[in-house]
């Protein structure tokens, strides 16, 4: 029973981080109609951000706060220089951001070398939980992820700018003709999405081995999550990430992590194939 609770705790950890990743992907796609293939690299950049800032001697928590902001700024630059020139051409957004991901990945290899790096975790120790000891940092990862998700929802559903953003998602041309500054929203959305990926990378940095090619391992599950749940909503990716992540944890427990990932991908492809509108479309109310 206690083992089960620990297992559930570990699973929710992975689930919340995947939610952050797919939430970023989904707001970018929903608002800007851009498929961001460089999202995995934004996550990896967040982890490298922590690594670099820590190398400068900054305390971990400051690094954790700054890294997502740096990734946001990189996202903003990418939007300004590249992405905005491909609007209205969905397949070209894939190609352009795909090129961006190759560029960023190779940039990281040049700066940090092809090998993997590790970030030293904050010395927090463990606390006894359900009869076993559990690392405190993992609990903090969950709190930070949940808080960031909640803040994103607050932004979209409780502020004026969020209302405008939802108007653009519902009908971009109508929103623009009502005087909403869609250009500003595009910039904000892309840097918000990049920042969420950067935050996911930054909080996970002490728990993963950081290497330039790690992005793909997050991008594919992130995309499968939003496709499984269905596009066009902000809450969809949460449900999708929960489904994908839960399947992954369960399959890992039963087999091995490698076969679990294969199982999840195959299952997700089958779901996407038979429900192109997503599972949530079976009972959709939200706009």
């Amino acid at each position, binding site marked *: 029973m206690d083992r089960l609770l620990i297992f559930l705790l570990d699973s929710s950890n992975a689930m919340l981080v995947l939610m952050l990743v797919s939430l970023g992907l989904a707001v970018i796609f929903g608002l800007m109609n851009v*498929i961001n293939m460089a999202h995995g690299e934004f996550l990896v950049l967040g982890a490298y951000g922590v690594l670099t800032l820590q190398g400068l001697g900054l305390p971990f928590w400051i690094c954790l706060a700054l890294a997502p902001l740096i990734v946001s700024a990189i996202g903003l630059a990418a939007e300004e220089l*590249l992405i905005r*020139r*491909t609007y209205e051409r*969905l*397949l*070209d957004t*894939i*190609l*352009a951001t*795909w*090129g*961006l*991901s*190759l*560029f960023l990945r*190779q*940039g990281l*290899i*040049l700066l940090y070398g092809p090998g993997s790096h590790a970030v030293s975790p904050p010395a927090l120790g463990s606390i006894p939980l359900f009869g076993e000891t559990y690392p405190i940092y993992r609990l903090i990862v969950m709190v930070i992820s949940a808080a960031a998700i909640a803040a994103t929802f607050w932004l979209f559903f409780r502020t004026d700018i969020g209302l405008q953003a939802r108007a653009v998602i519902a009908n971009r041309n109508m929103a623009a003709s009502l005087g909403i500054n869609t250009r500003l929203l595009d910039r904000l959305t892309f840097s918000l999405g990049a920042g969420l990926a950067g935050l996911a990378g930054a909080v996970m940095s002490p728990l993963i081995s950081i290497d330039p090619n790690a992005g*793909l391992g997050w991008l*594919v599950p992130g*995309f*499968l999550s939003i*496709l499984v749940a269905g596009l066009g909503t902000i809450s969809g990716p949460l449900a999708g990430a929960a489904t994908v992540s839960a399947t992954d944890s369960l399959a890992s427990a039963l087999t091995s992590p*490698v*076969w679990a*990932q*294969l199982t999840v*991908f*195959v299952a*997700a*492809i089958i779901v*996407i*194939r038979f429900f*192109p509108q997503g599972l949530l479309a079976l009972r959709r109310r939200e706009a």
Partner: protein
Amino acid sequence: MSRNSLIHIAALALFALLPLMLPHWALTDFAIYFTYAIFAASLSFVWGHVGLLSLGHAVYFGLGAYAMSVVTLGMTPLPATSWLGILLALAAPALAAFALSSFFFASKGLTGAFFGIVTLAVAFIFERIAINSGWLGGMNGLMSVPPVMVFGFELYDPLPLYMVLLAILAATIFTLDRIKLSPFGLSLAAIRENELRAESLGLNARQLKVWAFTISGMIAGLAGALFVAQFGFASPSLIGFSLSAEVLIWVALGGRTSILAAALGAIAVRYLESQLSGSLGAFWPMIAGLLFMLSVLFLPRGLFGEMIYRLTTAPRN
């Protein structure tokens, strides 16, 4: 004769005469570039002509490479000959492409970006299976595959190798161009332009797309087999993400709307890479990524595609 045919003949003549100017050892490199060009041709057919962006096309190249290796090394009950290997390297990817695309396109089916992402996930799956399969040699793959025997001679010397691969590349481009102009190919172009309209004119879009994808998979598999015939190994790096990304760059930079342009793109990028990686080192892939982004923005037809387009389109009066 049309200007387009003249360009094709000129390109073929150029490459046929190139051995006169190149040092002997460089011919082996070009034979490899031709192999990649065949692979690029297979992608440009589905992407440029049918409008299906396949982000995981290395799956079919890798399947061809593994099929060739497995048969030639005698790991199957079949007789261990290269020719049977090539045959299986055509059949296995074609079958996989047929099965996967039948699944993707059945009933409502996947379109556009969805299709791209799912093909990427498929490449991920195949790469993982290859890495974790002991039978296929895991991370290291299958090594020491003997070269192909032609009339009792090993196909190994640079000049014959160069000429044979040039001939196969030319035949591939010729065949795909003929397919593009056939009624089947024109139907595919109609589907690319407007699938709904093509269907209401009575075309079975699903079936046509599946056949196009099968042809493309088969040609990619041929390229994979030819790769093994030259390098003598098949490894997980041939089946997954990185080669899929590379072929996409070759085709985009060369030009996806013309088979010849895509093939030239592969040759040009690989040639530049070998020339520049010495001086530019690790900067090269970064530059390739940058060029790729720039071509998406400013040269959607690709470099050679734009040249061919300008040369073949008569100026408007």
